[in-house]
Structure formats: C-alpha cells, structure tokens
C-alpha cells in the first residue's frame, strides 16, 4: 500500500541509505530504532515534507514522491505536539478542515465531535500552553484524526509523557486504530512500546531498515547480532503452559501480569531482575532461589547468568552489588522480579493480526 523504494537522504548528520519499507493497509507498524537514527526523517519523507535524494515513495502503486504534503493527507503528529500557540484548542483541531475549505461552523462542529471522542471536550477554549503533556498529545491526535487522514504518522508520541499518562495513551492509540482501521506508522526508540502496539515491527539501525516482521519473528529470529543487542534480547523464554496468571517456563512457574492463553514467549529485561543474598518481602510476585552459572562484563555493568532450577536467566547488576553479593560461580542467591516486568510476545500480535484481517476485509 505505502512503499518506500531504496530511499537515500542525507541531512546534516543523518543519512538514510537504501531505505526500503512496505506497509500494509490498516496495519499498526512500529518503526523502532535508537534515538538519533533518522526515524523522523523517514516520517517527513513519507509525509512529503522532505524530498528524498534518491528513491521513490509509492501509495497504492502510484508514485507520490513529488506530491506536496497538503495533497497526501498523511497526518504527522510530532513528539513535541506542534500545537499552534496562537490558536485555541478548538481552532487547532479545526485547522486542517479549514485548510480543506470547510466552512468555519462545520469545521468547528466536527472538531468538537473529535474532542468529545477523545474525552477532552472540556479543553475546547483553552490555549495550548495551559495544557499538560497528555492533554497536548490528545489535542494533537484530535487535530490529526479530524481530517480523516489516509495514514497516521506518529513521531515518538509517548516519549515526553510520564508513565501513567503513557499507559492510558497507549490504550487510546490501540482503540483508535481498532475503531478506524487506519494505517498507523509509529516511530519509537522504546522496545516495550513498539512491542505493545505494533502488529509488525521494523528495526532501524544506522540509517537502514535491518529487519521487519511480527514481534514474534523479530524477537525470536533477529537477523543479526546488532538487532539482538539493540532489542536487549536476553531472557526470551519459551512458554510451555499458561494457567490463570502463571506461565510455565523451563519447568518453573512464574507469575505474569498480562498473560493470555496464546502467549508463546515471555521476555524480561535483565535490568528488571534483582539479586539478593537473602529473601526479602516485596510487592514483586516472583522470588526464587537461584545459583550463579557465570558472569561477564556488559559495558560498565555486569551480566550475571543465573539458574532457577532448569530456567536460565540473565541479570544486570553494578560492580558494587557484585562485590556486596560476593558473586562467584556456584553461589546461591535469590532473584526477584515483578509479574508486570514479564512481557508477553505472541498474544498481542496474533490478536491484532485478526483485527487487521478483519479491517482489510471490511475495506475490500
């Protein structure tokens, strides 16, 4: 549907090289890469704000490389929201409609409906600078959605928000996508964010797309070591069985906050695993006895491999903790991690794959 063919673009320090990407109708695609890799440039090329040095952009088979942004109708939501400071929330949201020649009263009516849909009707007359980060983000989304864009381009939409707001907005984005069946390209540096929203992921390193695929494919079969390192792919655990809130991995039953029947793999960041010499009371629901298998340097930290019976895990700790815990091969310790630190791979993607098929069918 949307295709980028071997795009090359140099802009200051950023270089896109032979960048090829293909999006499917109605899918939620997460483009994942470290900060400063040029992800925003990709969005701006798709939106028509930047002209690629080489390569082309196709939309439903038609070459749109030289089509100006106002004729593409790919709404772009920037990380800093880019609300117009001289216009009220209502005028901000109505802006795109007014630009399309819709009369002021009709545009404002539609804008009001959109604000209501995003549950921010009360902000209608406010000035953007008086809004909180989460409110600004909703207004920016309303402003983009109200023009019924052919595609929604999101540039790190959740990066500047605190955790609570982020969780709520994540849900909102998922709702919007399911309700509208709109194609969404979501750019982020946050692996968990990409994982929780994207039906498909693209991993972008050094100005190139290294790998695309479902979260399953990317997490379980990273094409090379750099992708694996970027994703922090330690502790991807095959699930043997799921029973109400627990998953069995390598014979060990662990509590998982968001497990569903179709969870095929669990993933926990090594930083989320705490090691201690004695068991201690905490709200974390997983605490096990473990034994140190081996350890290695990992940057300025240490990666310690531990075994909970048959289950092998990697924990990242500091040199101080390493000394205090007197870590040595074969030492007995306790490991603790929250049930919410275990991310499920498989269920999200399979559930949303179904949605994608449905929405495609509806459109077809």
């Amino acid at each position, binding site marked *: 549907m949307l295709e980028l063919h071997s795009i090359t673009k140099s802009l200051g320090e950023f270089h896109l090289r032979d960048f090829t990407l293909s999006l499917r109708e109605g899918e939620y695609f997460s483009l994942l890469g470290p900060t400063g890799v040029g992800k925003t440039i990709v969005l*701006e090329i798709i*939106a*028509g*704000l930047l002209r690629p040095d080489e390569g082309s952009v196709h939309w439903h088979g038609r070459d749109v490389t030289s089509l*100006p*942004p*106002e004729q*593409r*109708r*790919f*709404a*772009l*939501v*920037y990380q*800093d929201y*880019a609300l*117009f*400071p*001289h216009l009220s929330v209502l005028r901000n949201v109505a*802006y*795109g409609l007014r*630009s*399309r020649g819709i009369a002021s009263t009709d545009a404002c009516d539609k804008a009001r409906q959109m604000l209501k849909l995003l549950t921010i009707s009360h902000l209608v007359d406010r000035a953007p*600078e008086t809004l909180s980060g989460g409110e600004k983000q909703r207004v920016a989304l309303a*402003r*983009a959605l109200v*023009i019924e864009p052919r595609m929604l*381009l999101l540039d790190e939409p959740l990066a500047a928000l605190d955790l609570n707001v982020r969780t709520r907005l994540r849900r909102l984005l998922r709702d919007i996508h399911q309700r509208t069946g709109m194609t969404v390209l979501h750019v982020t540096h946050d692996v968990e964010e990409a994982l929780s929203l994207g039906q498909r992921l693209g991993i972008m390193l050094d100005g190139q797309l290294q790998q695309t695929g479902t979260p399953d494919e990317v997490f379980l079969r990273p094409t090379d070591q750099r992708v694996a390192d970027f994703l922090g792919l330690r502790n991807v655990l095959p699930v043997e069985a799921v029973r109400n809130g627990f998953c069995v991995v390598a014979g060990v039953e662990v509590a998982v906050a968001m497990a569903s029947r179709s969870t095929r793999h669990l993933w926990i960041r090594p930083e989320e695993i705490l090691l201690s010499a004695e068991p201690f009371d905490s709200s974390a629901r997983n605490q096990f006895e473990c034994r140190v298998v081996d350890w290695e340097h990992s940057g300025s930290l240490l990666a310690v491999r531990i075994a909970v019976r048959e289950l092998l895990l990697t924990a990242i700790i500091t040199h101080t903790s390493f000394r205090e815990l007197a870590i040595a091969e074969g030492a007995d310790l306790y490991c603790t991690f929250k049930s919410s630190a275990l991310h499920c791979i498989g269920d999200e993607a399979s559930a949303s794959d179904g949605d994608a098929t449905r929405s495609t069918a509806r459109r077809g």
Partner: protein
Amino acid sequence: MLVAPLARQSAHDRRRLPWFELVLILLGSVVVLFIVAPLIRILLATSFGELGGAARDEQLIESIKLTLVCAATATLVCTVTGVPLGYLLARKRFPGRAALMAIVDLPIVIPHSAAGIALLTVIGRQSLLGSVTDGGLVGTAAGISVAMAFVSVPFLVNASHSAFAAVPSRLERAARTLGASPWRVFRTVSLPLAWRDILGGMVMMWGRGISEFGAVIIIAYHPMTTPILVFERFGDYGLAASRSAAVVLILICVAIFIVLRIVAGWRGVRRREDA
C-alpha cells in the same frame, strides 16, 4: 536544610568581588551619562516659550510632516518586499544565502553620504530614470523616501528574518500535513506568530528613516526634512535658532522609541507565555 544554600551563597559572593562590580558600575555609568547628558541639557536649555514658538513655526511643522510621511512611505513599501525576503532567509537554505544576508547589511556599513551619491546614479538627473522623467527623483518627496529606505531597510529585513526564525518550523510542517498550502501556512501560522517582531522592525525602520541626514541631503535639500532644517538653521543662525527644532526632532524620535519598546514588551510577554 538551611546551611547548604547559605554556604553556596557565600561561595557565590566570594566569586563576584565587590571591587570588580564597582568598576563595572563606574565604567557603565560613564556611557549612560555620555548618552543622557546632552539630551537632558538641550531639554533644560530650551524654554517653554521656545517650544511654543516651534509649535507656530510653519516651516518646522511642514518639515516634520514631510519627514514622518516620507519615512512611513518608505517603511510600508519596504514591508511588502522586505518581509518576504526575511521569510526566505529564515526558512530556505540556498546557495548564496550568506552573501544575500551580507548584501542586506551593506547599507549599515556604507557611509550614508556615499550611499546618497550612489543612489543619484540610479534616480538622479543623469540616470536612465532621470532622462525618462525629466530630472529623476532629485528634490522630490519620492526621492527622500528612496534615500530613507536605502539606509533603513536592513533593520526591517533583519527583524523579519529573526521573527520568522523564532517560529518553530515544526508548526509549519505540521500545518502542511494537515492540508494547508504553503501560502496558507504563511498566512495562518508564520505571520500571526511573527507579526509583533516584524512590527518592531517596522517601527525601527521608520525611526531610522526619520533621523536620516546624509543620504537625504544628497538627494533633496528641498523639500526640507527636519534633520536638514536643523542643520540649516544651525549653519545660518547658530545654536539658539536651531535648538527648538532639534528638541522637537529628539522628542519625536524618543516617542517612536517608546512605542518600539512597548511593542518589544508585548513580545517579551508572549515569549514568557510560550516557555
């Protein structure tokens, strides 16, 4: 809790030695005094009677009208062409942009009498324009406006340039993706966010035009603008005769300057709200 900030405070004080501050203040006051003293002296030396006389001085009033109108005309005409140039400089990157910025600044560094002579070659009697229009713009109000515009337009272009540069380009780009054409973006986003600074540049250009002497006197001794009238009276009749006209001119320029500060003040308020 209290100890830490106090300790920091005293370290802070030790760094900024009082004698150094004293030197700064002393040297600074020399500059301020240097600017203010002549102005205050001339105001004090001028009696209300003299000012009343100035108010009935037909020639002076005519010259003030001429000066204000010529400078305003120059400003308005240059706004139409200078503001787009400012936008171009702020938004587009093209070969020769740096050279263009340098060219815009040229009138500031060229001696204004020399600038007047240069202008004569374009709008004077011997110029192409002069041969077509019988005498060119020499000795006309239009000629005065051209001379004023030449020396003061850099202020407007530079103010517009920085005004547009201060508008985040993401706002313009977001507007484009929402369906606005470049012209609509300029009209509804860039200009509304930049107009205060541009207005500041216009007032600045107007004030600079009013005070111009060197370039104007080359193009037109008559009709006479106020700076030239002050010069003529000083030359023909001496200090006392030129003083009241000078005071009136100074007061006009101070009034314009106050307007400029007020406009700049709005700008300050807006910036704070943005932050």
